[in-house]
């Protein structure tokens, strides 16, 4: 759901850019307290992996496609702050090198996918995870965080289009949330698969209440 330039107006560009800059600054400040070689290396490899997975559009019914956003994947390995930075780096490279997502709209895209997508994933993962330590609950929390974070991000993207007067807010909201509730299933499947693999080879890298990257 990379918003191109022209879809959002100046006030939305400026306000989302300001919120994203503030959010990222806070995330960097947080990560600095536990910054070390291992953290940088893990952020790099997860970032590269999410970039690669974002290239893989999968078809959904109706001649439409979707691809992973990676917010939940980033959170479950890196935690929310490093996760937000990682998704933002992917979005910045996509906008400036690959013409994917507008340059003026970058603030909005970072807000939707790196801030909202990542922190909503964290919240859902944490809320469901505190219910029980069972394996089933763990995977349900991963799937729910993935699916919901995509749907919530699409809600905000639609909101920005509506506020910008690009198209009627009600219709855009319904259409965006509708299509992304299907794309979100793909997000959940891919995230669960990748997390299951990491959990198998390096269970110590999975974020839990007792153990995090810091």
């Amino acid at each position: 759901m990379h918003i191109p330039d022209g879809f959002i107006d100046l006030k939305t560009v400026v306000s989302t850019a300001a919120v994203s800059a503030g959010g990222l600054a806070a995330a960097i400040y947080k990560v600095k307290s536990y910054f070390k070689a291992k953290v940088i290396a893990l952020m790099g490899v997860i970032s590269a992996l999410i970039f690669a997975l974002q290239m893989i559009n999968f078809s959904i019914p109706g001649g439409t496609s979707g691809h992973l956003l990676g917010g939940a994947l980033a959170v479950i390995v890196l935690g929310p702050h490093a996760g937000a930075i990682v998704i933002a780096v992917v979005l910045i490279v996509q906008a400036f090198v690959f013409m994917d997502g507008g340059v003026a709209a970058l603030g909005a895209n970072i807000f939707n996918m790196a801030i909202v997508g990542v922190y909503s994933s964290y919240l859902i993962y944490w809320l469901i995870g505190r219910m029980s330590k069972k394996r089933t609950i763990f995977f349900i929390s991963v799937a729910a965080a993935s699916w919901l974070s995509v749907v919530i991000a699409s809600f905000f993207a639609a909101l920005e289009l509506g506020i910008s007067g690009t198209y009627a807010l009600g219709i855009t909201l319904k259409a965006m949330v509708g299509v992304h509730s299907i794309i979100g299933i793909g997000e959940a499947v891919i995230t669960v698969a990748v997390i299951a693999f990491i959990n198998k080879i390096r269970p110590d890298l999975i974020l839990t209440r007792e153990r995090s990257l810091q």
Partner: protein
Amino acid sequence: MNRRDYTFILVGIIAALVIAMFVSVFASPFPDGLEKVAENHGFIDKAEQIIPESIFLIPDYVFGAVDNELWQTSLAGLSGVLIILAVFGAVYLIYKAAGKKK
């Protein structure tokens, strides 16, 4: 960073490279969710290029230096993974340099 960390990072980088270079050519060509909504409701034409396309290194994931369509995507994927790794590599070098000064 221990041996297991290095292994994990190596496995992750190889996975990223394989996905970006070889799985990417099978990606669905259909418009994504937002593009589809914009097409259906007739506002896709509002999308505009505020920076000329020629400034971008690899616009639309097409590595222009080669003719073959599959290689254009593969090399775009390779470049993207390398650029991202370079960003974090640079952060690492700055971190190391800052550590030495102390």
